[in-house]
């Protein structure tokens, strides 16, 4: 699923590992989400949206 996680992360000045630590997931999971190889679960997607103070629909886009 297309997403803007990388854009938001870089705008926040965070590394993948730092974002992963903040969201309690691994750096590999963040990388997999950003490269669109892995779709996060709904709870994780909600945590990502809340972390960046936005809505899920503004981050994740259905193909």
């Amino acid at each position, binding site marked *: 699923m297309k997403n803007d996680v990388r854009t938001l992360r870089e705008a926040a*000045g*965070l*590394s*993948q*590992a*730092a974002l*992963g*630590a903040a969201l*309690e*997931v*691994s*750096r*590999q*999971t963040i990388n*997999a989400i950003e490269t669109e*190889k*892995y779709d*996060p*679960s709904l709870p*994780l997607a909600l945590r990502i949206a809340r972390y960046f103070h936005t809505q899920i629909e503004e981050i994740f886009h259905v193909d």
Partner: protein
Amino acid sequence: MSTDTPTVKPGPRSVFWQVTASVVVVAGLATVVAHSGNTAMAAGILTGGALVVVAVLVAARLYRRRRGDVPTGARVLAGPVDERDRRLVGRSWAITGFVVTGGLVVALLAKGMGAQVQEAPAVLLWVALATLVTSFLVLDRRS
């Protein structure tokens, strides 16, 4: 920019359950093989399996202390696991179960046709192990 930091270390309880599960798997494999009559291989599985489990856990622990970025395999063995890790492990086990089930069907059909299948349990165990490890590595690379 924030420095990279590893995720939270696992509690001793999760490590305990992983070690317990590993011991159960090794003992189960040895029991199945022993029941098929191959006691020498069962003894080898117990010895070798226990050594491998201990070696992998020690290596995973040492690896975690040296580097902040923990590989998926090390996290699965020593924790903590996240949702992607759990999904990888679940899919790997599912693929392994599918392959082993297919192998069992083939072995039963062969036995029904009069073939000698005494070595089938041992072969299936190795196939299961190879399938589990290979599927985990491939899925980890692709997702």
